[in-house]
């Protein structure tokens, strides 16, 4: 039986007279990133707090790895779930290393194992341990503090991470860098992530699945591509905002729209280049060498490479061999034509 990492079943939550959640139902698959996005006050944080029982539902069931969270000991549950919030909440009286070691210490790991884990995580978060271990949070920049917050949440290798607007307080450039880094890290750690943001662009970028919230309700739960393709309601359409076509280019991967026939498909990219058998229509970069993209890069990247060169086709390279080509027309079609995109 394939088990959901987290399930919400008709969950309602009220605070006194305020109905924060009016019956939400969806499930989060293991190893994926699910983003909850919507205007402020629509119940995203509440949804998140129901998972680690910082709040309890008024009605309905929240399941963690198949088990009703109400039946799990709160403290054990929280220690097995990573938690990052916008204000980070680093412990100012503790060093970076001590901050990161928080949950392992609560779980009574031995000190040697804790030390190793702290170093490993600081490396992962691009904070060289030799330099940062003994720093206090006040000595760090906002971006560095947020990295420590993420490292701390990952410390005990949780199956699920809850991230409530983790990059919300950062400047756009730092935020963009951290998003990219986090996407890479997520591939390595393969943790299930529930991620809250009020920024649709961040949602489209980070999410395998996106739950769009309107006051107390999930109005659409789908992949970024399908949400851009078929917004379920006018609210969703408004929320996505301008430039849907452009946003589609950002989330759509080259591999999904490339054509897989053509003379160079199947050959090694190094061979194609060294034998000079590059067809005349292939795009080149500004130095005149043939350009290419990876299959998992965005169509936006491909388009930009195509626009910068005079060729009309861009080879798609995976593991050193050419697996297909994309053209401006193909990208154009994909971004404008409403068509169901199928994923394996």
């Amino acid at each position, binding site marked *: 039986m394939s088990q959901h990492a987290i399930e919400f079943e008709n969950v309602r939550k009220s605070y006194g007279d305020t109905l924060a959640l009016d019956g939400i139902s969806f499930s989060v698959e293991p190893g994926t990133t699910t983003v909850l996005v919507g205007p402020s006050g629509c119940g995203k944080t509440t949804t998140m707090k129901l998972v680690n029982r910082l709040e309890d539902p008024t009605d309905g069931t929240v399941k963690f790895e198949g088990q009703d969270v109400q039946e799990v000991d709160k403290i054990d549950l929280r220690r097995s779930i990573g938690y990052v919030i916008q204000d*980070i*909440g680093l*412990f*100012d009286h503790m060093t970076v290393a001590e901050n990161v070691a928080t949950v392992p210490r609560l779980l009574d790991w031995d000190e040697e194992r804790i030390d190793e884990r702290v170093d490993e995580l600081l490396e992962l978060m691009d904070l060289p341990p030799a330099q940062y271990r003994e720093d206090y949070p*006040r*000595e760090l*920049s906002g971006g560095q503090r947020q990295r420590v917050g993420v490292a701390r949440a990952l410390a005990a290798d949780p199956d699920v991470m*809850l991230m409530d607007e983790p990059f919300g307080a950062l400047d756009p450039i730092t935020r963009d860098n951290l998003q990219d880094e986090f996407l890479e890290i997520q591939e390595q750690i393969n943790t299930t992530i529930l991620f809250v943001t009020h920024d649709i662009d961040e949602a489209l970028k980070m999410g395998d699945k996106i739950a769009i919230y309107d006051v107390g309700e999930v109005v659409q739960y789908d992949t970024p591509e399908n949400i851009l393709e078929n917004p379920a309601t006018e609210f969703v359409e408004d929320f996505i905002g301008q430039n849907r076509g452009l946003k589609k280019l950002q989330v759509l991967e080259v591999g999904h729209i490339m054509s897989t026939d053509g003379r160079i498909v199947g050959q090694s990219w190094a061979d194609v280049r060294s034998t000079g058998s590059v067809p005349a229509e292939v795009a080149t970069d500004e130095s005149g060498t043939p350009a290419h993209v990876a299959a998992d890069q965005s169509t936006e990247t491909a388009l930009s490479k195509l626009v910068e060169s005079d060729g009309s086709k861009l080879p798609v390279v995976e593991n050193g061999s050419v697996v297909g080509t994309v053209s401006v027309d193909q990208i154009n079609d994909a971004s404008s034509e409403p068509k169901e995109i199928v994923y394996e």
Partner: protein
Amino acid sequence: MSNLLFEAFTYLTSNFDTFLALLREHIVLVLVAQVAATVVAVTAGILATRNERVKTWVLSGGNVSQTIPPLAVIALVFPFVGIGFNSAVLAMWVYALLPIITNTIAGIEEVPESTIRSAEGMGMTDWEILRKIQLPLAVPVIFAGIRTSTVMNVGTAYLAIFIGAGGLGDWVVTGIQLFNNPQILAGAIPGALLAISLDTVLGFVERSLDTQTTSGGGGAAADA
């Protein structure tokens, strides 16, 4: 003036053994009252942050204790604990409570909500949050309260002589009665110096407790 200081100094050196005895009494009074007040006030302060009702009681109790003059406290308690050291300590203890209580409450409540929420979300129990997060972060503020009330009590301890508990007040009161100005000063100046040096030393400790959270490059460091 400098002549008077000189006479006071001469009085002190020629009665040096008595001086040491009075100084010792004075310091012991302050120390015992302070330790007892710290234990009770920190506990009361912690309890106050756990429950709004308790907080109201604790704070109004603390406020009342500050508004009663020390001599009135003595008048109230000496029927029960007698005249002498005990009632003097009790009066000073009452007087020392409020600054420590208010600072304990403030120190704990100043811990940012996000810090507490993180700790809770990571699976710390209430007790662990108090012990590992709130108290360590509040220590500098609590210590500032202890410092304030210690310095205040060095002054209050001068009144101990009225109930036969000794201290440097002995020379001041006797000096006033005998119009012996050098004796008054020989009693008063060491107390002032004691207050100043305690303030300095405790202030130093307080800052060293606080360096961890306030020193360093601040938030201006560049992103890695």
